[in-house]
């Protein structure tokens, strides 16, 4: 393997400045759990390894004064997402996804920023971030800009980020919903890459009608999706088993619209409906309490 030089900045400015000069020839190292596998596969070599794990500014988690926005630093590990009360309270589906994210060993290293920037369709943090209408704050030499999460990926493993960009933080619309969930299907229970994942949060009015709903489908489409059609179907209605079944059919239809009828659809069409029902049935019960 050709030589690689490791740079270990202590501040955000140093990192941004380095990327400005060497971005296209640099691997950004946060938790490293995806990067190590990629490097070992020998797919592409770059001259620099920029280790951003020492930059404290990337590790903060804060809620805005009016408690409407939750800021999660890109360098926050999945273990911290799993243990911080602020995240559990204001982004509960994201908190839930951290229980089944890879393994304990990986959660102790992997970061939310890496999970998103890697642009893998099966990033488990993505559907929970989408339902919170998250945006990434990206730092560059000319200042920072904001990219909505839904625009972060151009396709599978194709990030919209430039080589000079560094994701600093994610801004989520904080919410303490009455109902939330994250579900996924993998080949086995622990340590499985998601074949399919989904996140939901909802609130109801006094009559048990859905007054607010956000729903996102992950892993089985090339880029993250917020399913507006599913949200509209439920909003303003008291969910029933019939409505749930109708929603499952609609979701499968929307998924096929995006992916086309590929060979895996024989599995995915019933699976996406099954997972949806597993997730939404408790919401039906909750609305009728």
């Amino acid at each position, binding site marked *: *393997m*050709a*030589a*690689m*030089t*490791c740079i*270990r900045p202590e501040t955000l400015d140093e990192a941004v400045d380095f990327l400005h000069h060497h971005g296209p020839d640099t691997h950004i*190292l946060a938790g*490293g*759990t995806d*990067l*190590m*596998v990629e*490097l*070992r596969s020998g797919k592409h070599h770059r*001259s620099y*390894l920029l*280790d951003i*794990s*020492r930059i404290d500014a990337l590790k903060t988690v804060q809620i805005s004064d009016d408690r409407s926005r939750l800021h999660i630093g890109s360098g926050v*590990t999945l*273990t911290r997402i799993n243990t911080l009360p602020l995240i559990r309270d204001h982004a509960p589906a994201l908190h839930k996804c951290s*229980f089944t994210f*890879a*393994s*304990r*060993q*990986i959660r*102790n*290293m992997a970061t939310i920023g890496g999970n998103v920037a890697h642009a893998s369709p099966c990033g488990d943090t993505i559907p929970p971030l989408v339902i919170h209408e998250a945006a990434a704050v990206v730092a560059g030499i000319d200042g920072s800009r904001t990219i909505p999460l839904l625009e972060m990926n151009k396709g599978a493993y194709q990030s919209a980020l430039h080589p000079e960009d560094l994701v600093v933080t994610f801004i989520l619309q904080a919410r303490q919903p009455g109902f939330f969930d994250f579900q996924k299907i993998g080949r086995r*229970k*622990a*340590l499985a890459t998601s074949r399919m994942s989904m996140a939901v949060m909802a609130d109801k009015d006094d009559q048990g009608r859905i007054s607010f709903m956000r729903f996102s489908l992950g892993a089985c489409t090339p880029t993250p999706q917020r399913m507006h059609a599913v949200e509209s179907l439920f909003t303003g209605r008291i969910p029933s088993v019939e409505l749930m079944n109708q929603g499952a059919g609609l979701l499968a239809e929307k998924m096929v619209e995006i992916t086309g009828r590929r060979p895996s659809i024989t599995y995915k069409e019933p699976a996406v409906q099954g997972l949806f029902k597993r997730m939404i049935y408790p919401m039906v019960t909750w609305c009728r309490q």
Partner: protein
Amino acid sequence: MTQTKIAVAFTLNGKKTVKDILPEQSALQVIRDELGMKGTKEGCGIGECGACTISVNGQAVNACLMFGVHLDGCRVMTVEGLAEEGRLHPVQEKFLEGHAVQCGFCTPGLLMSTHALLGENPAPDDDQIVQAISGNICRCTGYQQIFSSVRAACALSGQGSERENQDHKGERC
């Protein structure tokens, strides 16, 4: 460009260690190849089997996925650090008593996952035990003996062990 090595300094099983390593070297390569400590095993090499589990600042991590440069400044423990003065660690004792070892390849990783669990939570319930060792694959035992042995070790640690507590102060850097 010349091969640029980088100095990392960390505590390995209580001993100060300094090593010049290559940026792309994994913690596993540093521990096994550079330092000659062969207790930590390489299984899958992609973070799926847990055979390479070590404890870094009290947290279980896959040494195969961890960059060696991230060891810098950390308190690292491998399976070699468990026994003290020729006496097995209580977790090792319980693995022996409970027949939790067959071929033994997964054992160092499972011991370290258990050790990290006990540091974080000295009295875990069954679900927490399953969660903590679900990142370690064993192809021989069928897991039951491992699970019972971990539970027996937890019962011991629930009574309080000074050494466990000392091992788990501080956060991962």
